[in-house]
């Protein structure tokens, strides 16, 4: 699973003074004046109580949402100036998402699900896409499940397929929002091991939101958020 751009030590994602307010009759501040730099080959765990703004921060860092103020730079590019289509293109090629719910397309096979991002990017032949999907699934111990549909898999398998799909276009950054939230201990352990391997062997960067202290403890860097503010960042101290 090699091939991801390695920028060891270099800033991949930089957030400066990022604030996100949810509009409404009573506006809610989700993320408040966050400064954060994520570097290459980091395994970052974002923790905090429920409703503290962890997922909101992840969506901002993953360009799924736009900040109301502040700046987010991804690989040196100021994303605030980019149109929605350009942000989509960055997400397609440079970012991979894993959510608490696997969000696999139920009518497609495992292999087809993994191939969807590659087909949208369209930079490989169909044969090459199939080979890459097979390679990723083998790496995640899912090779024998390729022809199955999601409903035929266990929860842990489905989540690993979601990881495989996130890795399809070989992105340097993987963003995971409570990836083990719906998994039992054994399956959570397997997913955590995959993330560790992605950082260690593939030189990728993983940013993971989690409630699980054991999982967070396995990360190289832990960021704690309370009420939308970063209250603790082991990386900053380092």
């Amino acid at each position, binding site marked *: 699973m090699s091939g991801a751009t390695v920028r060891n030590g270099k800033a991949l994602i930089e957030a400066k003074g990022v604030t996100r307010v949810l509009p409404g009759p009573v506006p809610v501040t989700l993320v408040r004046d966050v400064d954060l730099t994520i570097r290459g080959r980091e395994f970052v765990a974002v923790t905090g109580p429920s409703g503290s703004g962890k997922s909101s921060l992840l969506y901002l860092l993953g360009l799924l949402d736009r900040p109301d103020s502040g700046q987010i730079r991804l690989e040196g590019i100021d994303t605030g100036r980019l149109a929605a289509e350009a942000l989509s293109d960055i997400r397609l090629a440079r970012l991979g998402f894993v959510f608490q719910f696997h*969000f696999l397309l139920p*009518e497609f096979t495992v292999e087809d699900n993994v191939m969807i991002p590659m087909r949208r990017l369209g930079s490989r032949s169909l044969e090459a896409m199939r080979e890459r999907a097979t390679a990723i699934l083998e790496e995640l111990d899912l090779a024998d499940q390729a022809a199955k549909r999601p409903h035929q898999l266990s929860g842990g398998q489905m989540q690993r397929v979601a990881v495989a799909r996130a890795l399809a276009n070989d992105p340097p950054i993987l963003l995971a929002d409570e990836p083990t939230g719906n998994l039992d201990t054994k399956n959570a352990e397997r997913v955590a091991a995959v993330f560790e391997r992605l950082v260690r062997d593939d030189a990728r960067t993983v940013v993971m939101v989690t409630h699980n202290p054991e999982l967070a403890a396995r990360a190289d860097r832990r960021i704690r958020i309370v009420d939308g503010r970063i209250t603790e960042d082991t990386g900053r101290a380092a």
Partner: protein
Amino acid sequence: MKLHLDLALTHLKGRIRQTVLSMLGVATGVGFSIAMASLMQGSQLDFIRRIVDLTPHVVVKDEYRHPPEQPVRRLYAGGAVALTGVKPKEELRGIRNPKPRVAALNGIPNVAAAPILRGQVVFRYGGKDVAAALVGIEPKLERRVSAIEKNLETGSLDDLFAVANGVILGRSLAAKLAIEPGKTLTVSSPAGVVMRMKVVGQFHTGILALDQQESYALLKRVQVLMERPNVVNEIRLRLDDATKASALARRVEARLGYRSESWDEANEGILDVFLIRNIIMYATVGSILVVAAFGIFNIVSTIIYEKVRDIAILKSIGFHETDIRAIFLFEGFLIGGLGTLAGWGFGYALYRLLGAIPIKVQMFTEMDGLPVIFSLAHYAIAGGAGLAAAVVAGYLPARKAAQLNPVDIIRGAA
């Protein structure tokens, strides 16, 4: 695009029953549209063909489109003097001394002209009195301008010369009088002249007004009967190309001064009825397509409602709004496209079925079956309308789907 199509097909397969129902809605609209168009245009063309075949293309009448201007008005145009009680000179109607005019009109290339004198008469036979039009013709000229000879069931135009006072009756008129060829009847004119005439032939055109109301005799006899010697009231023209009738009518009217009506002007009222009938037909068929479009709107909206999570993940992966829109537009287009294909087949089947129904119709014309026509334009128009309805019905929910915010959906699912 293959990916978008795959996604669209997958969605539709997941809702196969509703998809088929929506498709059938489009098929019904397209099918009925084709069948109705083939019937409506068929009957319209049939009528026009009969009119063009059987009646003169231009009729020069013994009247003026605008009454001649009073000399006093010409003399004092714009004058301050008002004249009241000015009476126009009473003139005897009719085109007098028609021969040179007919000869001049026959000199126009690709045009044949024949004079007639038409008058109302009462036929009496076996105690029955039936009012009808008696048309005085010159057979040699008449056979060049009308299809009356072609429509003779018995006798010929030359038979009018064979007896002293020959008359040819329409089939329905003869039936009303219960008279057969060879019998003699009495004819009374408004001038008070009574003449015994022998039926020498019978015609059938299929146009009810002609078959029930018209009869033919020699021009000279009719002039005697009407007491209008050397006068005709119409000069009938036939062109090699009937589409040039309007232009010729204008030219003739400008040259002779008499009102000259082309076949389309003479039947303007009926052609307007056809227009209104077509509008009603297209409105009815259009409403079927609107209902079908609602069906498509409904199914695409339902799929979008069911697939919001898929939309969210696709957008988070990096699909553009245009990609999402394309997927759901494809769905509308696929339903519309398949419905159109099925509708073409259905429409063709209806067209064949309608054409095969043995039915006696008596409206403006007599028909033994429904006059349907096959035209690829009907299929193109109905298919275009079906597809357009499907695309519009698919576009509205597709646009909404494209605007969904993935963060909202992911938060809701978590």
